[in-house]
């Protein structure tokens, strides 16, 4: 049995658990950081100093690593099934390697970026 099939329960748990984390956290983060802050509406909450203080604290770093990594692994599992739906059986293994590869890259990028805070 291929390794990727042995790990199915892990991928699913990351999908499910990650899905909850994404659902709880991502909407507010996207609205706050990617939309309201660029529009200048978060000058008090997301000034450089406050944002850096929040993100660089131990809790903040932990929060970022957990949320972003889980978002990548959740999305990867869903993307894998999406690729299967679009491309059929021939897309099954390549789609799985591609999707989880993206998640791995995203996790490494998260760890490196957060460590630099």
């Amino acid at each position: 049995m291929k390794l990727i099939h042995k790990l199915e329960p892990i991928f699913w748990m990351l999908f499910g658990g990650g899905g909850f984390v994404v659902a709880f956290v991502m909407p507010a983060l996207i609205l706050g950081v990617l939309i309201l802050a660029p529009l200048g509406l978060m000058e008090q909450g997301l000034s450089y100093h406050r944002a850096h203080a929040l993100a660089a604290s131990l809790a903040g770093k932990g929060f970022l690593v957990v949320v972003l990594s889980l978002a990548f692994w959740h999305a990867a599992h869903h993307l894998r099934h999406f690729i299967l739906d679009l491309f059929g059986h021939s897309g099954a293994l390549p789609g799985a390697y591609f999707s989880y590869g993206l998640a791995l890259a995203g996790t490494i990028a998260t760890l490196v970026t957060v460590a630099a805070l």
Partner: protein
Amino acid sequence: MELRKVKFEVLRFRPESDKEPVFQTYEIECMEDWVVLDALNAIKDDVDPTLSHRWSCRMGVCGSCGMLVNGRPVLTCAAFVRNYSGTIRVEPLSNFPIVRDLVVELDGFVDKIKSVKPWIIRKIEKDLSEGEYLQSPEQLDEYKQFAMCINCALCYAACPVLAAEPDFVGPAAIALGHRYNLDSRDEGNAARHETLAAANGVWACSYANECSQVCPKHVDPAMAINQAKLTAALQWTGVLPKRSFT
């Protein structure tokens, strides 16, 4: 009673003469209370005796007459002609090879049902003199919904995963396996684990929920499969052992 002329576009496939399936149109005078199966029988009886289709009880309990009507998997004995307008398209179930006309090959489906060991498994069978296995109404409620399956295979026709992965064990089989795992009289959780907790078992399901949408008996296989996923995940992590719990 009012009669209405209805056009039926029926998929035909005769392996001795057709390379590919083709559509053939019939116009049938339908009574107001007819179902699509009545029209198919009228076609076969009065118009074209070469049409092949499966049916039996014509009352929604045998599971024989499943077909696609206007693209949707239904029991043709339960699909009222008056609920459709225009030409009605009748095709064999999707995701199955076609043997002839509206008859599909169900061997794979039957094999999958068997693979989940859909019977009570006991470590030691009780002797007859010890009496029946007792079960409370509450214990029955835990699995009863999943026991209502009539093996009509509509869920297999609707499932998008099966379109890509024909080896997926499938909604009906997994729901049936889960039904036995939940049965208080059963001790076969470990015996079914290899089939259910496989890559082609519960993990292949992408929760499209189409199976539950088309099930004529309200089995809700999507519910069973996804509860089975959580169970299998907890078993994989060791939080739950691979045994029954009643």
